[in-house]
């Protein structure tokens, strides 16, 4: 996940917002672009978005908070999404997820103390015939077991 070291400048933010303004329904593409760049939607971007789209801060908050994807604070350096849906449950996904959370000492949406990994639930990755499944950042992993999960977490620095 790309992350700028310093707080983003107005110019940087505007450069990410402007290319989407001609779209029909530009808000989600703007939020995705910002989150892809910074790992979250920075506070400094909010007034720029509301100004550009002529919406209220409340409307923007309403949209941001509706969707599971968008965050207004940074996550851990890596985000591990573990599938909780039925097909993965049928092959031991629940046990795997619970063991992972217990081992890391976090709850769902929690971040490890060293800031390396945030664990999130996801409801289906479309890997239903090769579960249990998870996604580390944008990389999909199927046929997971505790050994592979431990290796993934170690690699992510958890």
């Amino acid at each position, binding site marked *: 996940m790309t992350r700028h070291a310093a707080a983003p400048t107005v110019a940087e933010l505007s450069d990410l917002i402007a290319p989407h303004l001609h*779209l029909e329904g530009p808000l989600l593409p703007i939020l995705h672009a910002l989150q892809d760049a910074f790992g979250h939607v920075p506070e400094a971007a909010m007034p720029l978005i509301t100004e550009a789209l002529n919406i209220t801060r409340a409307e923007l908050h309403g949209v941001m908070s509706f969707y599971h994807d968008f965050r207004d604070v940074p996550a851990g350096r890596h985000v591990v999404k573990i599938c909780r849906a039925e097909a993965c449950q049928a092959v031991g996904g629940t046990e795997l997820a619970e063991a992972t959370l217990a081992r890391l000492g976090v709850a769902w949406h929690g971040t490890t103390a060293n800031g390396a990994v945030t664990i999130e639930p996801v409801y289906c*990755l479309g890997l239903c015939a*090769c579960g249990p499944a998870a996604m580390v950042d944008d990389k999909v992993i199927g046929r997971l077991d505790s050994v592979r999960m431990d290796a993934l977490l170690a690699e992510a620095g958890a």
Partner: protein
Amino acid sequence: MKVYVPGDSAAKSVGADDVAAAIASEAALRGLDVEIIRNGTRGMIWLEPLVEVDRGAGREAFGPVTVADVPGLLDGTLDGLGLTDDLEWMKRQTRLTFARCGVIDPLSLADYEAHGGLAGLRRAAAMTGAEIVEEVTASGLRGRGGAGFPTGIKWKTVLEADAPQKYIVCNADEGDSGTFADRMIMEGDPFTLIEGMAIAALGVGARKGYVYLRSEYPDAIAVMTKAVDLARKAGVLGADLLGSGRTFDMEIRVGAGAYVCGEETSLLNSLEGKRGVVRAKPPLPALEGFLGRPTVVNNVISLATVPVIFEKGAQAYADFGLGRSRGTATLQIAGNVKRGGLFETAFGISLGDVVNDIGGGTATGRPVKAVQVGGPLGAYMPVSKFDTPMGYEEFDQNGGLIGHAGLVVFDDQADMLQMARFAMEFCAIESCGKCTPCRIGAVRGVETIDRIAAGDAGAQELLTDLCETMKDGSLCALGGFTPFPVMSALTQFPDDFATKQEAAE
């Protein structure tokens, strides 16, 4: 020698990228002339990574292949499965929608055309809008996203609506557990979806289309985005579509993790940049959809099936099927199953044949206990209902729904009370919040099931009553259909609810 290593995300999730890299480096080391093609998956997910080698005498299948198998694969000493097309799984299918998936290079338009691609669009480009809509109606195609609404009727409504702008919106928010057909076709044969949307646009008079693709599918997003670019450069999209003088272009839009956005009105709100809250119907999206304009909202598989209907003709498609379920079902066999994957066949095959014969029973080897058909909002079917034929009406009569034709198999260790609880919990997490029976009912549902688990004898009646309220009082299928898995678990597997009660007493 040509080597096919799927770039499908299911294959990648079990190591296909590493295998492809190992083949490339091993081939380079030996000075072999190997062309590696990252195709889609053939749908035999239990064999992934399934590598195919073509030495000039057909494509021979190997799988699951590990990095350690690669030297043997190139030596010709690795045990193979035989020619891919001769495998039982492939031979028994009727591949119409998925004919090219896993066969071609997904991003080669030349490969696509060589396998029948664009023939349907060329034919449609010479037809009037009304003729196109009539062809789809005659094929009997029904919405493959779950509701099963006749596609032709939907298109006719949009065609006849008078508006300065109309839209084609593809619902690629495939959030249902146990379903991956949309993902497979978008990653394995993206041009067929583009072609289907273009035909829809010519049919109803739309100039703009959107694919609303869930963010959980980064690989599908990447492939579809590239495919749209390639199609535009080749004139399949744009101001003069295939030289027809008509305009159609499209964009890929990425969802943001809300399950309810798979509901079409919620999806439209999301596409407009709003909260993905469900809209009341009427007005139908066909009349007032995206930005208030007439909009065709169709599922990926519905649209991806349109090209083959135009290529082979409506009657050829309608000749497959059962009753009012025409054509093929793209069965997705998942969960605790020995042979999981995608199996396309005419409607009418029985549930039991799908699970036991095609799927080979459970992966654990234990008895099957239940099969959830149609996603998280579908009923849990017990083994006693295994003779139910796969068909919209046939499932409805047996207390279930076929939905997107995803099947999740559970063995006898599944706790159906927990599955019912999960259905309510999921509804509570994903509810858009617009209507009370869903927003509040789902939370109360979790609590009520916990009371049953704790031995409260009166709570079962309360749960039944609550499910009635949710079913009758919810605007969309999330609140309205959550009672399917809950009540099917309660009525078909009463022991899982009673045991808890007796244990507590």
